[in-house]
């Protein structure tokens, strides 16, 4: 009984620690991309999608994390804002 209880608490502790680490990792990832200046080096390490527009190319990248909308929808928004 005691052993089972200790095991249960160990599992709970592992889950809590994992969740805390995940949240902390996400916060760290965000802070790396949300500093005062453009995080050029961090940006350059991200996978990019190139969007050709008249007279230039937009290199679009996503910082770690999810959006409700698909990446294709977000890229469409960038294309629409840049113009035909």
């Amino acid at each position: 009984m005691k052993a089972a209880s200790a095991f249960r608490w160990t599992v709970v502790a592992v889950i809590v620690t994992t969740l805390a680490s995940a949240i902390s990792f996400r916060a760290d990832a965000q802070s790396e991309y949300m500093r005062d200046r453009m995080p050029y080096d961090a940006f350059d390490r991200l996978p990019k999608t190139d969007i050709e527009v008249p007279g230039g190319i937009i290199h679009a990248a996503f910082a770690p994390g999810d959006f409700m909308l698909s990446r294709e929808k977000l890229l469409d928004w960038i294309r629409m804002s840049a113009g035909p």
Partner: protein
Amino acid sequence: MTTYYGRFPVNSLRLLLVPVDGGRIRGGTTWGYRGAAIRIPLGRDSSEDGLRRDWVMVHEMVHTALPDMPDRYAWLSEGLAVYVEPVARVQAGDLTAREIWQAMMRDMPKGLPQAGDQGLDNTGTWGRKYWGGAMFCLLADIEIRKATDNRLGLQDAMRGVLAAGGNHEQDWSIERILATADKAVGVDVLTRLHNEMGPKPVTPDLAALWRNLGLKRIGEDIEFDDTAPLAAIRKAITAPPAR
């Protein structure tokens, strides 16, 4: 953007979307010191409709079309972005002229000088920086069009800056930017207007300006008067460019 400027302002743009809490865009920032770059903190729960109505992305892209300047002239950079973004979106068919003139009539008074104002160059308040700058751009657009029989406007002047190599990856003085823009349209409107509005407070008669443009406020709505003296200029500002 490309409709207004005729081309994208920079050859290469880094654009970073950062997921943040919520369902809206939390501002945006543009840099040029290591190559043109825009960062947009975008709410994870943002909707397609929200993005369609968004103004931030175009606003930040407009910044890439102007050389970097000392902070005291941020009113030109922000004012241009506030003024050009809606005009560009009407030209592209994303907004109506009625919507943007209505918004200008509502918001432009926020850019008027308040007590203690020392001109656009020396007053760093939010209202003067964003809407004072936008007012400068509107007045410049109208004056250029008056001086060129409505053939050319601010759009042609700013295309001239871009054609001369002036984008956000360059550091230029405000004098050089305005002189280059003036040269593109063959008049000295921008330099002259800056000499007037930069060092001291200037309060344009907005009520008379709206009347001359043929804009009448009817409750929350507006009505166009195409017989007004500057109605043709009002129409030309939002007309898609021929080239």
